[in-house]
């Protein structure tokens, strides 16, 4: 008998449903779907992350100028710091799509999916995704990219990898940016930054770039070209796009 009202109903039972499922499973499924799109067209997709103003857009502009004769490049802009990042990219003759993230602090796979259907993927070699400037939120959200690159500018602290281990550990490459300013700064020690990164255990490599003043892009362009070659050599995956996700 129900002991709340005395009716004939049995007391409500509780059951525990075991789930053991990732909280980001839906995002991960959408990201896998994006990756299938990219792989079908053999596009290398690089997700750029950093704190606001670390130089993501400036690095992209310099990269486009250096590589646009040899590779077909496009950019998905998700950074809300400056509304005109996409315009800055387009000024270099490269397609750029601005994702309007509203107040979102990171991109997710669905946002990228909506954008990628507006890009000419078939003709591309290299797609950059400029994530929202934030060293916390973007780390856990797979977008379907092949490589994660995190910028650490020399105008930030050299202890950033120790303060934000999750995002630096999730990186395939850390770019120490604005190194042209190293000689005017006395409190950033690249060796200390490298040690903090090494303490994260994953063996993530760190390279130096400068996109302004005395540009230094050699290591970065070399890394990109190695990745582009590797992607081209990768076996083409069977074109299978989950119908459910097409909506």
């Amino acid at each position, binding site marked *: *008998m129900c*002991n*709340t009202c005395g009716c004939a*109903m*049995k*007391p*409500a*039972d*509780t*059951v*525990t*449903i*075991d*789930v*053991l*499922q*990732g*909280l*980001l*499973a*839906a*995002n991960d499924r959408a990201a896998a779907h994006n990756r299938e799109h990219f792989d079908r067209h053999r596009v290398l997709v690089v997700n750029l992350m950093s704190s606001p103003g670390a130089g993501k857009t400036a690095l992209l502009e310099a990269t486009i100028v250096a590589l646009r004769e040899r590779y077909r490049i496009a950019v998905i802009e998700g950074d809300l710091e400056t509304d005109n990042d996409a315009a800055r990219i387009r000024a270099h003759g490269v397609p750029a799509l601005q994702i309007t993230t509203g*107040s*979102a*602090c*990171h991109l*997710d796979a669905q946002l990228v999916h909506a954008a990628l259907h507006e890009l000419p993927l078939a003709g591309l070699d290299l797609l950059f995704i400029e994530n929202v400037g934030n060293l*916390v*939120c*973007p*780390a*856990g*959200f797979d977008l379907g990219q092949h490589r994660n690159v995190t910028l650490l500018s020399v105008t930030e602290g050299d202890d950033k*990898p*120790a*303060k934000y*281990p*999750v*995002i630096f*550990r999730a990186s395939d490459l850390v770019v120490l940016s604005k190194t042209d300013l190293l000689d005017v700064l006395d409190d950033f020690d690249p060796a200390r930054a490298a040690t*903090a990164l*090494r*303490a*994260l*255990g*994953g*063996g993530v490599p760190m390279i130096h770039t400068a996109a302004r003043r005395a540009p230094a892009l050699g290591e970065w362009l070399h890394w990109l070209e190695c990745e582009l070659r590797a992607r081209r050599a990768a076996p083409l995956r069977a074109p299978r796009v989950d119908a459910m996700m097409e909506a």
Partner: protein
Amino acid sequence: MMHELSICQALLIRVAEIAAVNGAAAVERVTIEIGALAGVDPALLTAAFAVMRAGSCAATAALRIESTGVRIECLACGTESPAAPNRLICTQCGGYRTRVVAGEDLRLRDVELRLAGLPELAQLPPVPEPSGLLRRRARASGPGATA
């Protein structure tokens, strides 16, 4: 804004699906696991849950968070040891190449549901997709246990 809001939203969607397929009257409790390297702040997620659950089937549900520490395995000497999230170095040999074996999890462990009526366990609707992942665990609740 913080990404804990998106994670909380994903959690509530998943919990609502589980409650619906099981014909639950309400969600009593949700248990999740958060590793120290998951990049999620338990306090922020708890605050988000308290606000965002309103109006959902989990409106009165409790959120239980089990925090898991970081454990690493040294690729050089094989030692497994606990570690701080920003110091994933072998405590035995000082090796810098390690593999994280625990502490990255961000998982929904289980959901405790209050059932509407009196279905026998055997008559409950089948458990939904990835069936290997979802198992029903009966909890004998004595009279008045859920009052």
